[in-house]
């Protein structure tokens, strides 16, 4: 009995050590900003797409992705101040999927700031989300940075309320990324007005971080790598000196700079989307400054997926923890005019697996 216990204890300890060894915990603490505020770190987990098969059966692959991200965030040392959840906790917005996802997320040892994705919204139009998880849009301040959360996956009323016979059908239609019967994402007027009011009391010198599910710019409409009223939102953010938009939805490393706004997207924990450049039939606007992440190896289940953490210290360091692959670091702000990858930004440094076709 005692020998069994010893063996079990050993196995447990060995498991923890292996997991710890796999987690890159060295946070870079370079001061590059002109006026560095109080430095802090937060983590980013997005797009786990927890999918119910039937009853208590869920897609193993996607569930493992979220569990791995939660485990690794909990191993960060120092711990992040909070975690941003970038949306799409569920695949088809089902109560069972939310509950299962929340059960995994509750193991996080730090608070979570929630952003809703279209897969969480289009079954009950955000009812479960608002009752059990989070408001749809809100703001908060953290160590000198003003954070704003938006619901960017709304669409026009006709599509939402009148087009589909049942909520289930509406959800299925929105869940298909390449759906010719889909509808473009929007922030819409009510939230834009709220945003204007929220920002009215904030100094233009205050660093601003906007959290949305879809990119607040236009990359590729057929897959909703797109927010239809992005320009209106960007105009509201324009007076601020230092703005970063962080988003999910695209399941990939993606960054851009438009005027005063830096945009950064993270991988999903479930699966990687291809870059729109790999669809040969239509033009796309994938930002040319993005160094694409490696083409995913389908035989490595977790390749092309992962999570991120951000060091805020005057500027920002975005750490992309790409499982089964070399982690990436993108530097934003400070003396830099545009986001840049710390290893691969120079085309001469790029590697063959970053080629997509």
């Amino acid at each position, binding site marked *: 009995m005692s020998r069994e216990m010893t063996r079990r204890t050993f196995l447990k300890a060995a498991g923890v050590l292996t997991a710890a060894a796999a987690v890159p915990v060295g946070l870079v603490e370079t001061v590059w900003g002109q006026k560095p505020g109080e430095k802090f770190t937060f983590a980013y987990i997005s797009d786990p797409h927890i999918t119910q*098969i039937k009853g208590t059966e869920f*897609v193993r*692959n996607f569930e493992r992705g979220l569990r791995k991200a939660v485990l690794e965030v909990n191993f960060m040392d120092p711990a992040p101040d909070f975690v941003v959840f970038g949306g799409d906790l569920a695949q088809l917005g089902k109560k069972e999927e939310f509950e299962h996802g929340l059960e995994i997320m509750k193991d996080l040892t730090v608070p979570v700031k929630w952003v809703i994705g279209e897969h969480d919204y289009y079954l009950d139009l955000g009812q479960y989300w608002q009752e059990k998880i989070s408001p749809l849009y809100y703001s908060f301040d953290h160590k000198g940075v003003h954070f704003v959360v938006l619901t960017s996956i709304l669409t026009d009323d006709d599509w939402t309320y009148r087009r589909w016979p049942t909520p289930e059908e509406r959800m299925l239609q929105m869940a298909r990324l*390449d759906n010719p019967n889909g509808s473009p994402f929007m922030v819409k007027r009510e939230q834009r007005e709220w945003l204007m009011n929220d920002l009215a009391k904030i100094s233009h010198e205050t660093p601003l971080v906007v959290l949305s599910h879809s990119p607040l710019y236009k990359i590729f409409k057929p897959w909703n790598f797109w927010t239809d009223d992005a320009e209106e939102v960007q105009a509201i953010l324009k007076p601020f000196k230092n703005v970063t938009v962080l988003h999910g939805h695209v399941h990939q490393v993606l960054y851009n700079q438009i005027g005063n706004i830096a945009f950064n997207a993270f991988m999903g924990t479930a699966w*990687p989307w*291809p870059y729109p450049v*790999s669809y040969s039939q239509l033009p796309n606007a994938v930002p040319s400054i993005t160094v694409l992440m490696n083409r995913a190896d389908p035989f490595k289940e977790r390749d092309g997926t992962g999570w991120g953490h951000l060091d805020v210290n005057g500027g920002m360091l975005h750490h992309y923890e790409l499982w089964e692959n070399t982690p990436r670091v993108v530097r934003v702000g400070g003396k830099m005019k545009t986001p840049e990858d710390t290893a691969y930004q120079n085309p001469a440094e790029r590697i063959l697996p970053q080629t997509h076709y």
Partner: protein
Amino acid sequence: MRKSLYLFIGFVLMTFSVALLMAHADPFTKEDLKKWDEAFTAVTKEGEKLFHSSTLGKNSVSCDMCHPNASDAHPETYPKFQKQIGKVVGLRDMINWCIQNPLEGNPLAADDPKMIALEAYITFERRGVKLEPGKH
């Protein structure tokens, strides 16, 4: 006896000649083209449906979840050496690999109409891209 044999041979030859005269090697009309194109489009549409179906596999995952518009499937590079399998394989081998692994389902026979339909859709979404068999 011999006479009737000659007659028979003559008759057979004549029948063939008439048949040959009636059926030229390659006569087709605009109507034919339309018909064939409709047949192809129907199979492509069926392929699109299967590609987006949660019941092609067994765990409700569908092909389009990783390959919207069948992108990132690069059919123009097959057959090629698939490094993870260690030999040269065709597109259909990779379709079956995906059905068996991410979709946790049963593989299709090479001549299964579902396989043909999936190949038709994947290839059609890549139309116009030059063939590069073997490219990794």
